[in-house]
């Protein structure tokens, strides 16, 4: 146990040393981390609640006030502080993104491992389900699902509906990726040896397969996270978010509905748009770099065989 921990720590620090030198990866990590910090400390970053209406001296709501008149980013059509909406919006956007991403990752990995490891009719069945989901256009399907689920009087909040729908539809790419990795790993000698000394399926999956594909899953999750955030923004922009909980998508939805463009209120629609770009760029940079460093197929030549299974960090260590 102690030995495993030590090994993990050594791998991790080796990985960190390699990662640190990768500028793209670092940039992605900084972008993503800054957004997470903003979301966590939202109440410290703004003196208002997201629903507070800023009023002029006569008590009338100060609507469409430019940044020169109020606060760092002006007010929206309802006289609410845009900066406050933005930092609180980070909470909803990231929360939906993270949770949906985790659900997608979990389902995708589970189905990928089952299909890859057991093969046969199970593989056949699971992969056909994946194929079906892959060919259905995501956005229309999600629109219909979200709208229908909300029409039915389910006692769940609109946000949970969003999280579930995104999470339950975006696991297909993970499942395919994981399956292909598992297919190659299960043919390796150490798996055959483990099986020869009588190890059960559960043991082999837990001790030999999952540790091998875990880095891959992590990298893939970061990429799915950006998709989930984009999809959430898209659905919220189309009016399927929860209007009482500002997310970047609902901000854009209101900006569009309430003619921010005709009013020249750039401070209303640019910040949430840029925030979405900020986070998805962070995810994509980080995810690509992680995938590059952790995916054995991308780092080593296929003829090197067994050497490629070693964590990427180890090679750097020997240099």
């Amino acid at each position, binding site marked *: 146990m102690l030995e495993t921990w030590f090994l993990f720590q050594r791998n991790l620090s080796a990985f960190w040393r390699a990662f640190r030198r990768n500028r793209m990866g670092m940039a992605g990590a900084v972008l993503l981390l800054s957004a997470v910090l903003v979301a966590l400390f939202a109440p410290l970053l703004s003196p208002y609640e997201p*629903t507070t*209406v800023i009023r002029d001296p006569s008590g*009338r*709501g100060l*609507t*469409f006030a430019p940044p020169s008149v109020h606060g760092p980013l002006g007010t929206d*059509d*309802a*006289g609410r502080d845009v900066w406050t909406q933005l930092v609180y919006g980070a909470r909803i956007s990231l929360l939906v993104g993270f949770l949906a991403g985790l659900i997608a990752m979990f389902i995708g990995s589970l189905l990928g491992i089952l299909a890859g490891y057991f093969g046969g009719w199970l593989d056949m069945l699971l992969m056909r389900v994946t194929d079906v989901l892959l060919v259905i256009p995501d956005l229309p399907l999600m629109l219909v699902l979200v*709208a229908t689920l*909300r*029409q039915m*009087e389910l*006692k769940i*909040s*609109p946000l949970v509906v969003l999280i579930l729908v995104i999470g339950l539809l975006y696991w297909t790419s993970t499942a395919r990726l994981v399956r292909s990795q598992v297919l190659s790993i299960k043919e390796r000698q150490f798996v055959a040896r483990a099986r020869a000394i009588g190890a059960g399926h559960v043991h082999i999956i837990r001790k030999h397969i999952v540790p091998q594909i875990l880095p891959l899953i992590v990298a893939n999750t970061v990429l799915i996270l950006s998709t989930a955030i984009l999809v959430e923004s898209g659905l919220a922009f189309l*009016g*399927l978010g*929860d*209007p*009482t909980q500002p997310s970047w998508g609902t901000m854009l*939805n*209101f900006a*569009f*509905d*309430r*003619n*921010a*463009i*005709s*009013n*020249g209120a750039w401070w209303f629609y640019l910040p949430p748009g840029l925030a979405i770009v900020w986070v998805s760029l962070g995810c994509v940079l980080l995810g690509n770099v992680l995938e590059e460093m952790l995916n054995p197929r991308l780092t080593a030549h296929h003829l090197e065989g067994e050497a490629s299974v070693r964590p990427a960090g180890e090679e750097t260590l020997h240099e």
Partner: protein
Amino acid sequence: MKRITLLFVVLAMLLAACGAPVTPQSQSPVVLRVGWLGFPDTLNPAYAFLSEAYTIFDLVYSTLLTEGPNGKYMGSLAEAWNVSDDGLRWTFTLRPNIRWHNGEALTIEQVVWNFNTFIQNPDGWVTNSGYVKGFKEARALDERTLQIELEYPISNMEFRVAFLYIVYPKDFESFATPEELQNFTNFNPVGTGAFKINTLDKDQRVILLDTNPDYFDGRAKIDQVIYRTFDNSDALIQALRVGDIDLAVEVPNSAFDAVKQFQGVTAISLSGRSLTELILNSVPEDHDPPPNRNPAITDPVVRLAIAKAINKQDLVDVVLQGHGIPGVSIIPPTLGGGFWFNRNIQDVTFDLDEASRLLEEAGYLLQADGVRAKDGVRLEFRLQYPSDSSNYPRAADMIATWLGKIGIRATPAAVDPDSLMAAVTPNGDYDLVIWGWGSDPDPDFMLSVMTSEQYVEGGWSDSGYSNPVYDELFVKQQKTLDENERQKIVWEMQEIVFNDRPYIVLWYDNTLQAYRSDRFVGFLTYLSGIDSFKSLMNVEPVK
């Protein structure tokens, strides 16, 4: 294939535009280009529900009487009219020399056919049926005199007649069943109005109307009107800004101040006849099908608390950007110049603490998650609104926020208008809904919305409100000929509705419109807006 059609339409429109100016003056025709966001689904007066259809009816068809600028009625097809002393016989004398768009003369028999068809076929002529209720028979006294006999005196007869468009009988005679009649789209109507349809393209959503040179009340000062449908309000406004259209019939509240700044554009804000309300499910428990709702919504205390938790002035300031006034009664204050609006009703004051206290005293206690509950009934409501409005999402958001502060959780959701209509009437499957009405000039229609008999499929009631006292008063005001007597009843009815709260009227919004004042002058600012038929008759190009 699609591109070819488009090209063909463009060509057709070019040809049409070229064809018209072959007039003696040989100058280019004056075209008024109007932009709007809707499109009529039918031009059949028997079964039309969209306001866009009525805009076109006003241009293409004529009625016996029409509403004048001061709310009084004036002659249109009829030049004189009177009523017998018992109020049961109305006689209308038609103007001479009225012609249909196809050149035929309008005969008294055709007018009689119109009225008798409306009376005898209420299942087919659904939209007219309410207006001919109590009519017994129409007959011709001579070649120009029409007599309508009633079953009982009708207080708003002039208004009702002003709603009944006289259609060309040959177009409507052949239908055997009500369904056949209603499925007829009548996209090429023959009327007696000041404009006639030249082209109606429902794929491109363009309607091109030519001026009727033989119109009985004089020719319009413009030669053509083109209605173009825009997909969203920003595109509509930009088209007005760059001069692609001359008149925008609906400017969104949130863009009005921006439009005012445009060069060469005049933006107009008129107090109108529309209202927006919060509907509280009031369907009787024994209705079939039974209502599906949170039972707490019928508790008068909860209703009062909701009313107290809504800051109507804030809604007007934010949602309407100040272009309207807070709502109170189901009758807008503009009807009859304020004559019908009960100004004695004192609205409840916005007070969140008081609202919380009311709920607390009634036994609705705060739970750990901030939502109040009593005997296991949690104050959780659906707050739905039709998805085609840009005002309702913000209003729903604000109302849900206020309600949240007094321990009521309202979950806003945009719903497709047709689905919402089906959920509301007659299924009663809702808690709170934000929706609006455009009122008639006469209070009768808005009052009818609250009667029990309207809560049926295809009926006008959406709240499901049912009150025998109210229903009785409704019939009574219809038969009361004395205006002051009728006013008393109408005021009493408004008070009943206000106190029972099937609706919480949120606001009366202004009609916001804008036109290119560097191109056209002469728009009339009536209640119905500067795009009214009278206004278009008066518009002329800037010289």
